């Protein structure tokens, strides 16, 4: 055998032997079957059902007290660190805000590579943030603050293609993790405080070419356009800034939409303003609207409905049913039939004054006098909402729906005149809140009646609260549950903790020194389970003491 032949054989053998580790492609079937490989975290909310419920069970109620810190990644950024990382076969992909992608050894935290992207002309309303990535094959996908969609090689961190989703100078931004459906990458645009016109787009994962687009503010000739007075649809908002879900059996993808623009002065946009503050169910192949449900018609409180659509198959009134569970920023908990969009249940999970209930079709009935005025109007929940983008969790084991809640939160909403100017604030007023939107621990002097945070466990059958874990300060942390009936979450005051998902009992906690503003995730490497979460500007990773 000549040296040349020997070399070819050696390379071929190396490739064959190492391929199970190094060359595995993440197919869409892998993403759909994410529960079959709970050692990985393949999409923003763990599965396309978005339950954030892991089947890993090495960490239990009995041993969780033995969790100890394994490694920390300190971001070179002072922005809010909101991204949920992905984990694929021992490699963790994090997004350092605003738009740097870091590939790390998930067991040690050592960096494989860094891809840096500097968004230009970005005008985000609420921080230069990013909430995560998507992966398909060996390609990562990231939306950027300047409204680019970028495909990045997951092995070497080099960009493959980049496409412009929307115009950054008009304040279109992308902050959420894309969603993979089949061979498409789905992203939406934010900018509801700047009078954008929202949409969700599906892009070919190989080329970046747009395949379909659904306008969350319908234009002339599109159904729903009649719900916008005059030309208000052109600056109607309805942004998309949290990742949606997907049901393969129905081939429907579900997305929450944000507030209509302007936020607090609705005079210029008479009508229900579809499809703002709604959940929309789209055919995943065509982007055609199958159904919608609007949580807050003609919103003038900035009650974005961008919460993660949590899909569950449960017994409903004695029959199995495909439902969607949704705790909305507007203070109501909802159960919807996700096949048809039928309203099944709506019940407040925090104090609500803006609506008195629902009509027979499930449309909220507005309470008298509860609308922003020139002198301000006190409304519950406040502008931060009863909850917001913070990921909830559903455990099929307990049958409970877990939400991060802002309790006793209120705001004085003020309506002001204002004209649209491209790329500039178009909120039409202001909202003053007892609990501030500050993002890191500050001295807390508040009384309970002035606002506090909680993890609340709701029974989807009734909307009744089964238990509550109170925090002295509010929470912007997501929730993770596991097959060992653990619940992981945190809060603004910097604790990361584990609760018994069955009763809310505190089992373990650690003070991380800065607000937890992301959803925890869990994965395993070489049979060892890890739990990771961002707090402040760091990613912390824990595992059981060995």
């Amino acid at each position: 055998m000549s040296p040349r032949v020997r070399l070819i054989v050696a390379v071929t053998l190396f490739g064959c032997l190492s391929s199970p580790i190094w060359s595995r492609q993440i197919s869409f079937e892998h993403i759909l079957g994410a529960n079959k490989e709970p050692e990985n975290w393949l999409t923003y909310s763990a599965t396309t059902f978005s339950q954030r419920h892991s089947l890993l069970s090495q960490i239990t109620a009995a041993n969780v007290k033995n969790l100890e810190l394994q490694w920390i990644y300190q971001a070179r950024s002072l922005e809010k660190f909101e991204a949920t990382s992905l984990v694929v076969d021992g490699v963790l992909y994090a997004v350092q805000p605003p738009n740097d992608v870091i590939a790390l050894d998930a067991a040690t935290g050592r960096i494989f590579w860094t891809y840096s992207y500097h968004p230009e002309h970005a005008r985000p309303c609420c921080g230069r943030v990013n909430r995560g990535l998507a992966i398909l094959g060996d390609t990562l996908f990231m939306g950027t603050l300047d409204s680019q969609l970028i495909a990045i090689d997951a092995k070497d961190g080099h960009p493959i293609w980049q496409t412009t989703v929307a115009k950054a100078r008009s304040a279109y931004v992308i902050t959420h993790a894309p969603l993979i459906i089949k061979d498409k990458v789905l992203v939406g645009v934010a900018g509801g405080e700047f009078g954008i016109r929202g949409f969700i787009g599906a892009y070919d994962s190989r080329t970046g070419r747009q395949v379909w687009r659904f306008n969350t503010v319908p234009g002339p000739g599109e159904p729903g356009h009649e719900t916008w007075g005059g030309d208000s649809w052109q600056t109607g908002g309805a942004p998309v800034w949290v990742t949606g879900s997907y049901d393969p059996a129905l081939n429907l993808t579900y997305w929450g939409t944000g507030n209509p623009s302007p936020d607090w002065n609705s005079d210029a946009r008479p009508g229900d303003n579809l499809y703002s503050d709604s959940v929309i169910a789209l055919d995943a192949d065509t982007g055609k609207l199958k159904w919608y449900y609007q949580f807050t018609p003609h919103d003038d409180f900035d009650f974005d409905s961008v919460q993660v659509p949590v899909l569950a198959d449960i017994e409903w009134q004695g029959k199995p049913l495909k439902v969607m569970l949704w705790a909305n920023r507007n203070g109501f908990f909802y159960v919807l039939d996700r096949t048809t969009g039928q309203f099944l249940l709506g019940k407040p999970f925090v104090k609500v004054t803006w609506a008195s209930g629902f009509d027979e079709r499930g449309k909220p009935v507005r309470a008298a006098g509860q609308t922003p005025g020139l002198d301000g109007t006190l409304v519950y929940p406040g502008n931060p909402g009863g909850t917001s983008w913070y990921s909830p969790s559903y455990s099929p084991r307990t049958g409970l729906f877990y939400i991060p809640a802002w309790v006793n939160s209120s705001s004085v909403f003020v309506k002001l005149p204002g004209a649209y100017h491209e790329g500039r604030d178009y909120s039409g007023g202001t909202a003053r809140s007892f609990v501030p939107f500050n993002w890191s621990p500050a001295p807390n002097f508040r009384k309970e009646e002035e606002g506090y945070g909680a993890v609340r466990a709701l029974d989807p059958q009734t909307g009744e609260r089964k238990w509550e874990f109170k925090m002295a300060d509010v929470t912007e942390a997501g929730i993770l549950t596991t097959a060992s009936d653990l619940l992981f979450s945190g809060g603004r005051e910097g604790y990361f903790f584990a609760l018994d998902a069955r009763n809310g009992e505190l089992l373990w906690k650690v003070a991380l020194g800065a607000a937890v503003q992301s959803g925890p995730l869990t994965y395993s490497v070489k049979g060892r389970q890890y739990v990771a979460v961002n707090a402040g500007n760091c990613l912390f990773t824990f595992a059981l003491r060995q």
Partner: protein
Amino acid sequence: MRVVRACLLLLATALAFRTLLAQQQSSVLSETEDGRQLFLANCAVCHGPDGDSVYGVDLGHGKFKTASSDDDLIQILNRGVPGTSMPAFSKSFSNIEMRAIVAYLRYMKSTSSATFASGEAIQGRVIFEGKGKCLNCHRVRDKGSRVGPNLTEIGSVRRTVDLQRSLLDPDAEVLPSNRFIRIVTQDGVTIIGRLLNQDTFTVQLIDSKERLQSFEKANLKEYGFIDKSLMPSYQDKLNNQELADVVSYLASLKGIDGQ
């Protein structure tokens, strides 16, 4: 007769403050409060907390050099005043913030009448440190107790009218950062202190012996806020002139660089 007049003035002032109290409590989340914070953070550096530190301008009494309407004031905030040290704030403030500042200027004017006659700061300091016994709870620079709020910079952040109100009716407005709490330990020991911080599991305070203490809530028998201010009213303890003197002294406390 002079005494009667002083008493009547004091009574009228106290009543005015009670009205003010009602207004303020309902406006914790008000445009005025937003404006107050913006004013103190940005404007009081030159104009002073009462708005009267720049010659020829008395913002606290609605006395402006050129402006007569709200729009005029917003224009000045936007463009500044060329040829003076008044900068343009168009890049610093949104329109909503400018409106809030203007609302606060109007509020200052509407409440400015309820003030004492001018006092003597030097005499006020004597009363503050002597008859008033203020140093038993408060600290100014390196003198006095740390149990109550530190007043070294109080003249930079509170208006004269606010200082007066605090002396006459301390319960009228207790800022969250000045709240006191009462705790009872498992041993039955009661501790009262000024709240410094709290979270889900712990509470931090400074106690009556100026000790910084931190407690696990799980180890406490009781824990709760004290709703009333611990400061006594000086309405019956000092006469009108003495009150005016103390207010003048407090208004003169501008921090360690302003002494």
